[in-house]
């Protein structure tokens, strides 16, 4: 059973996991990617990014390795672990259920069922 997390923290975790799904990425990249994909709507408070990354690492959902970034800097690359991948699926399912339910309560059709 996944540990219960509050909506906000859970959402950030979900976003990070989803961002890391295609492949390893460093912390700065994760923040940029989320900002970019969400059309600059989701500004990740950078102060909460690193605690979240560390928390996920401690939970064993992601793992970290030192590597070299595009511009030749030493950077810490995070990648999804096996546990993390299944956790992502669980969280996505939960998210879908939740957003559908909220949409129903608010009386709106889900605009796009991704």
């Amino acid at each position, binding site marked *: 059973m996944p540990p219960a997390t509050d909506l906000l923290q859970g959402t950030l975790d979900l976003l990070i996991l989803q961002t890391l799904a295609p492949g390893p990425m460093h912390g*700065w990249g994760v923040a940029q990617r989320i900002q970019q994909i969400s059309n600059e709507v989701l500004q990740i*408070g950078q*102060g909460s990014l*690193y605690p979240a990354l560390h928390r996920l690492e*401690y*939970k*064993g959902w992601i793992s970290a390795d030192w590597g070299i970034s595009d511009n030749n800097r030493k950077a*810490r690359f995070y990648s999804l672990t096996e546990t993390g991948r299944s956790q992502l699926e669980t969280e996505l399912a939960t998210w879908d259920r939740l957003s559908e339910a909220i949409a129903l309560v608010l009386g709106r059709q889900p605009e796009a069922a991704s």
Partner: protein
Amino acid sequence: MIQLLREILPRLRFLLAPRPQPELDDELSFHIAQSTDRNLAVGMSPAEAHRQALIELGGIQRTREQCHQQRPGWWLATVAQDIRYALRGFRRNPVFTLAVIATLCVGIGATTAVFSVVDRILFRPLPYAHPDRLVSFGLSQPLQRQEFTLGGFFYEWRDNQQPFESVTFEQGTNECNLTEANPAHLQCARIAQNFLPTLGIPPQLGRNFTPEEDEANGPKVALISDGLWLSRYNRDPRILNQFIPIDDHPVRIVGVLPASFEMPRLQPADIVRPAQVDVAAQHNANAGIGVPMWAFARLKPGVSVAQAHAEMQPLFLHTQQWIPAQFRQEFHFQVRSIRDRQMQEAYTAAWVLLGAVFVVLLIACANVASLFSARGASRQRELAVRSALGASRLRLIRQTLTEVALLAVAGAVLGCVLAQILLRVFIAIAPTGVPFLADAKLDFRIVLFTVALTVICAALVGMFPALEKPRSSALAARQTRSSTHARLRRVLVAVQIGLSVVLLSGAALLLKSFLGLENQRLGMQTAEVITVHIPVTDERYPTGTAYLDFYQHAEAALRRLPGVTAVGMSDSLPPDGNAWHHAMRYADFFVDGKPAASPTTGGSVVWRLATPDYFRALQIPILQGRGFTEQDRSTGGDLIVLSKLLADRLFPNENAIGQHIQFGNYNPYFVLDGPVFTVVGVAGNVRNQGLADQVNPEFYELWSNHHPESWNSRCTFLLQTSLGPSVIAPWVRSQIAQLDPTAPVEINTMAQTVTRLADRPRFETALLAFFALCGLLMAVIGLYGVISFVATQRTQEIGIRMALGATRLNILRLIAAEGVRLILLGGVLGLAAALASAQLLKSLLFNVAPHDPLTYAAVTLLLAMVALAATLIPARAAMKVEPVVALRYE
């Protein structure tokens, strides 16, 4: 499972190998470099680009800390930090630490030890099935308040009763001898066939009696106790169906009782045998009222004791007709639970102790609370500083709780050790009469309870300062002061003083009563008297003449011993008050030539058989006339000696000597057919109702040779000798063994017998005095702590006062006044509470009124002196402060 492992393993890895700090710093500086690059690309100046990047991150240190907090072991690490911090604080403040630990230790230790003792007495589980439904019922009357019954009544009740599921009885225990090689003196109980099933006691080996075995003149069978089975037969199961000789008769063993077995009246029993009562004969035997027995019953489910009493009352009224009319009104029907019957006098003492425990616990709580409160007040600044440095409210509270927990653990461990020691001491000094004390054990539920209570007190009070919003003024103020806490502490100290007054006065009352008990005049000399009891049995000495013959030979043999100056004989010994078969009603005295006393005249009279030397051995003075002489024993004549009390009552302003007295008999109807007794003398009064009760009138009947039927195994020799019992005992034994090698011999000193009667009050007094001292000690610690704290807090003020011209005496008065106010307040409250609660002690007191003014005055004086000393020590210290030092103080 694998999933779980996968989740836990990485955490464990991080817990064991913490991530090095530089790693995080590298990561963060990479992040800032990336942000700076992006900002440069947008066109910012290098300095501005770096600044914006830092702003975006939101503070490196904060992020660093937050990342650190994500670590699985983080919480544990802070606890360790709290503990280290607390320990450092304790080392800086050893007086506070020691005071709290000592208070907890004494509070937890004393209450646990005493509660463990009292728990065994008041709340121990009885070794029967569903003991809450077991009752004892029967008749009670002024000479015998513990209910009993008689065969004639019992069977009538048994056959017509409604409220009970089953009804049974036992017939008490008798001494019996196991007459095989290496004879043993045992206690044999007689029980009904359904006794064990009714009480719910299954034999651990063999079986209960069959109904056939319980019929009159049935086969001789027995169950033996676990103790006897072990000591005599080494738990050999082959003992079943063996025959053992009891009083020279072969008895077949059919079972072994469980180890937990005890008779409901708590008499010792090594062997139980069927009562084999002849039911049909009960209306003829013993003047038509049947043999004595003690009845027990199991209530039907849902029936209360009161209901059972109400339902049995008509049956009792119906059977009342068999009681002779003269004392019909004296008899009452009584039903009560077995536990109530067992606990009789122990109840009051146990509740008083329990009350004392509670008071000590309250004092301990108040003390811990006031110590923590004082510490909290002095730490306000420290808390303000920590809070300003970023400690959260939760963190400050946790710090306090950590300190409380550490002290509680130390106090609890030491308290358990103290409790164990105290329990040993209690058991060692306890009288044999206190049931089940010997197997009292520490009750860890109570340890938990007391620890929890004191910890809650400490935690609540200790958290006050942390809960308050730390004021910025606390940071700035040179002096910290909190009036609400000061008031709380003063109230707590006053309460402690009050409570210790209650304890002290209770203990002082008991002590005074006990000293009175020890030192009172017995009316006889017990110092150089040795008693010898030879409990031979009817089987070996079937007639009174045989007993008389044996005891006369024994008397002659004992007289021949060197160093023995007198050998008296009696069937009972003063001052024991338990010998109820030696009591008579005053109304049954019929003096020749005088009108009979009215049948309702109250009062009982003690009656004792005695030989001439009885008075010499105990040095009881003959005040008038003469005692018995050796010639009287054989020449006949029924002679009696009256005690002074009885003589004054029967013959006020008359000469008692030469008067003739007869005693009424009920057979079952009143007749006056007994011998006519002649009064030959009047002896001094001797205490005969135990140590505490008043003296009853008494008379001595000459134990003469021409009434052989009056001789039985109750005969006890009184030897007056200046030789110690260790010298005389082997001589006595060898003399008796020459007469009858199978006769058991019990030797005691009279002084021991008397001291034993005071065992129980001694025990109660010792316990309560111990509590009172604990309470006083803690109250004094509390007072000292508060006054010295106040004095330290006011050091600067003292400096200013002195600089302005106050003398040292003024300062002493200033500080001491605080203490005196508390002492007065607590003392007055305590006296009021003590006077109000003293009534509870009344039944434990002897010759002391519960409101004895002298005791209260002494207690008040003692408390005032000790408390004043506790005030003056810190006050003197304050007085000696150098003004310059005081002014500069913090």
